[in-house]
């Protein structure tokens, strides 16, 4: 299936070359641009199961399934640009792609800078630990221990807040790549890694060495997709939101939630006010 394949870098570049000339010259509407060139370019990182990852060498995940539907609805082809996470938001600002399709936690700070879609998943923070590690059975057990989190993630910020509320704060180590952090659980350099529940639940379900520490801690947060905060992008955002609502109504959303989270996820249907 050609449309489902991750675009080869060469193609991205060639497409980039043509789109860039347009992007720099015209203050055009992103949605109509997307439609006229027949392609929606999504920036994401393929390191974030179950949203975006490689399954048997092929791009798979909830985002993939969602945007395939978006492609059908809008009648355009979907292309992905895979970037290290720290480059994703700068890339959006630099108009390297139309929107960010990797889930971004909706926060007050980020809402000042970007526009978010309706929530597409719960982003509450929980801990992942080595299976059977009895030293950590509840979130509070991390007091005084080394704990990892993704550098620059809202989960890291939440972990920090939580940690300072403990008697002895945890020793927080920040990793550029989530999966490096997870391997640190096995090396023993950290006792646990904080990340969003859907992500670590999926990791724990796929890899027998890991286990989720429940309950989640910190404030309730949600993931959304991101567009640039300008008038050009508003129509695209609205189209995405409309598709989310439509997919919730006709049950397609529930199908992919069951497929990737194991069960349906109850999400707000209106734009939320972020707690952090």
């Amino acid at each position, binding site marked *: 299936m050609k449309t489902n394949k991750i675009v080869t870098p060469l193609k991205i570049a060639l497409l980039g070359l043509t789109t860039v000339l347009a992007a720099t010259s015209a203050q055009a509407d992103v949605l109509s641009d997307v439609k006229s060139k027949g392609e929606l370019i999504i920036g994401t990182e393929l390191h974030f199961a179950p949203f975006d990852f490689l399954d048997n060498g092929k791009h798979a995940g909830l985002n993939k399934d969602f945007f395939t539907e978006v492609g059908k609805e809008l009648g355009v082809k979907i292309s992905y640009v895979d970037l290290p996470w*720290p480059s994703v938001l700068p890339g959006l*600002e630099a108009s390297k792609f139309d929107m960010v399709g990797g889930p971004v936690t909706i926060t007050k700070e980020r809402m000042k800078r970007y526009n978010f879609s309706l929530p597409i998943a719960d982003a509450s923070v929980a801990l992942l630990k080595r299976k059977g590690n009895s030293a950590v059975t509840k979130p509070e057990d991390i007091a005084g221990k080394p704990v990892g989190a993704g*550098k620059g993630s809202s989960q890291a910020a939440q972990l920090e807040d939580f940690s300072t509320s403990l008697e002895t704060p945890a020793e927080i180590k920040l990793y550029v790549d989530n999966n490096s952090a997870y391997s640190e659980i096995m*090396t023993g*350099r950290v006792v646990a890694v904080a990340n969003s529940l859907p992500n670590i639940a999926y990791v724990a379900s796929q890899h027998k060495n890991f286990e989720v520490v429940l309950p989640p801690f910190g404030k309730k947060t949600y993931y959304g997709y991101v567009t640039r905060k300008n008038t050009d992008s508003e129509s695209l955002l609205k189209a995405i939101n409309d598709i989310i609502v439509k997919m919730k109504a006709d049950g397609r959303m529930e199908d992919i939630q069951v497929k990737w989270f194991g069960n349906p996820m109850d999400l707000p249907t209106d734009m939320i006010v972020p707690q952090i």
Partner: protein
Amino acid sequence: MTFDIQVIIDHLPEIASGFGLTILCTVVAALIAMVLGLFVALGLMSKAAVFRYPVRLYVEIIRGTPFLIQLFLLYYGGPSFGLYLEPIEAGIIGLAIYCSAYFAELFRSGFNSISLGQLEAAQIMGFSKISVLWRIQIPQMMVLITPGLVNICIILGKETTILSIVTVPELAFVLTGIGSETYAYAETLTVLAISYLILSELTARFGSWTEKRLSKYMERSI
């Protein structure tokens, strides 16, 4: 687009500590790499094949693979073999190993460019091998290879950006962190670029100063 220097000023202490750590890692790694590289060079020049071939393989593997991957294997793979390193230790050791291969080749070429006659003169006067190495070969080699040495040190300094992946809070780690926190990407990247430019320029200046001093009396064409 606005260029908000205030972001940088607000985070100056963190930036300074990142800068300090970058320099620390570079300097310590360079020193270890030189010593290690000297032994590797001696191994490369050894007459015994059992010694020479494994050392040659070491050099080729180190030079043939990216530092990023080496560091990753050292830090995240090490514990599987019982090697637990702290991030900074892993960063410094990784850098030192990476550069030791380059230093070794440089040292070897330096040794080779010392005329054989000088060594014969020492040999016939009864010098021990260690004395010849320490008093005749190394001092001259160091002068001959100063330009190459500076080049490698500049490369080494720049490779520190990669230490981010093992959570070493060096300059790039700190500045990209500030960038994603405050969205001041342009500002932080500019500071990063300028800082490295200064570092490299200082290294180069120091190198040519040393070279001038060292080669004051030495004929360059030996």
